[in-house]
């Protein structure tokens, strides 16, 4: 029996889809059976990021409405044979699927995989409720911006209300230089503020843009810093203890200690 993770954020464009694709791919690289579900109905793009766009025949909504069997809709990845994608529909109807249908679908899929990752749409409406309906755990993605952190906080509250406890945090698009010069929210501050377990810190990295456009997740590129961060995150999900990447003071845990001692650093 697999575990269902929903990747969510509240705010749009912070890296949910990027995160889903990269974690999914690297879990498959580790040999796990992984299914990615794109719950961003109407705005699907996980298939593009995965480079599987032109293989879509059926989608999530077709499965939920019994227009095809699950096996027919699952698309096998080009690179890893234990990695599958269930694409979102392009329909404009937000109510094309209900939380109950989504839950049933997750239950069915997780019987046959190790990890099921659900790429959640932005916002807190129907799409969010659908995406979390079948989830066992949640990964909250945020960037070091006040608005993104605020939305992440809101989402964590809503996850609690949906009985999804102990969400994990990914801090995306960290720029060590800006953190150093004090132009970006401090990693420690964000973590302290959201008060949930940190799963990983992903640097802002051009290779993400390149890889997204090519349909090749960054974890496949051994030179990509962001790819390395996502590989570490996946190993943590799989239960390994992996130390946090040193992002040049980006994760300055010393800061906190100093503050506790009453010696303000800034």
């Amino acid at each position, binding site marked *: 029996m697999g575990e269902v993770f929903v990747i969510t954020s509240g705010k749009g464009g912070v890296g949910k889809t990027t995160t889903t694709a990269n974690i999914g791919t690297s879990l498959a690289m580790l040999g796990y059976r992984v299914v990615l579900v794109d719950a961003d109905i109407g705005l699907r793009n996980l298939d593009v990021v995965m480079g599987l766009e032109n293989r879509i025949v059926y989608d999530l909504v077709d499965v939920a409405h019994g227009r095809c069997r699950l096996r027919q809709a699952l698309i096998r990845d080009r690179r890893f044979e234990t990695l599958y994608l269930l694409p979102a529909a392009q329909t404009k109807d937000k109510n094309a699927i209900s939380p109950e249908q989504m839950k049933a679908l997750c239950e069915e899929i997780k019987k046959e995989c190790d990890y099921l990752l659900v790429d959640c749409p932005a916002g807190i409406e129907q799409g969010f409720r659908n995406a979390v309906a079948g989830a066992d755990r949640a990964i909250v993605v945020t960037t070091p911006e006040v608005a993104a952190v*605020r*939305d992440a*906080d*809101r989402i*964590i*509250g*809503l996850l*609690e209300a949906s009985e999804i406890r102990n969400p994990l945090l990914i801090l995306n698009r960290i720029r060590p230089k800006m953190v150093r010069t004090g132009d970006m929210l401090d990693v420690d501050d964000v973590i302290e*503020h*959201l*008060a949930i377990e940190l799963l990983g810190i992903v640097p802002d990295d051009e290779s993400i843009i390149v890889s997204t456009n090519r349909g090749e997740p960054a974890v496949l590129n051994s030179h990509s810093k962001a790819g390395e961060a996502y590989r570490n995150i996946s190993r943590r999900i799989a239960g390994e203890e992996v130390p946090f990447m040193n992002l040049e003071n980006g994760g300055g845990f010393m800061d906190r200690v100093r*503050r506790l001692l*009453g010696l*303000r650093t800034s």
Partner: protein
Amino acid sequence: MEQEAVDAVSLRARKKKRGRRAKEQIDPQEDTALVESQDAKAEEGTSITAGSTERDEQEKDDIPVIRYTSVRQMRDDIISQEQTILVQRTIRSGQRIFYPGNVVVLGDVNPGGEVIAGGNIIVMGTFRGIAHAGALGNEDAIIAALQLEPSQLRIAGYITRAPEGDYASVYQPEIARVQDGIVIIEKYQPGYDIYHRADRKRGSING
């Protein structure tokens, strides 16, 4: 006691002059929360009890006991006898706590989170949200936090908001209350006399 009004951006709302104090709310006759006993012999108090059952044994052991006997003592030491809830969680954006009595939060209150209490609010963490103490009209209500960085504070009908722009946050417990028609924030110190009545009537602990 020294008063440092840290927060300058205070809006004065409705009420003209602060007159009444909470003491009217404490009726010694109807007081059931406190156990009364006949004598208040406590000398340099080191132990406080609300009950009288173990009195004799304790005094035998030479432990002076502070007993809340006189109405005056009650008024000075006990700020509120309202029902109090202890909430153990982080109050996040979009979440709101409402309680007619006092609220103690063991956690942080994040921006966009709200705590509304008929009585006092105490946050054992960082307060960054909106607090409304004395929401049912009690102007003597206070708001205290280990770190007070509120987006807005309200006490009864008085509102104050955080100063605009960056300001250095202080890593120390602070307490907000209404004084002379504005909400002021000052450093909290143990043994702090919230209403600054010491000059007027508070004497030794024995009253």
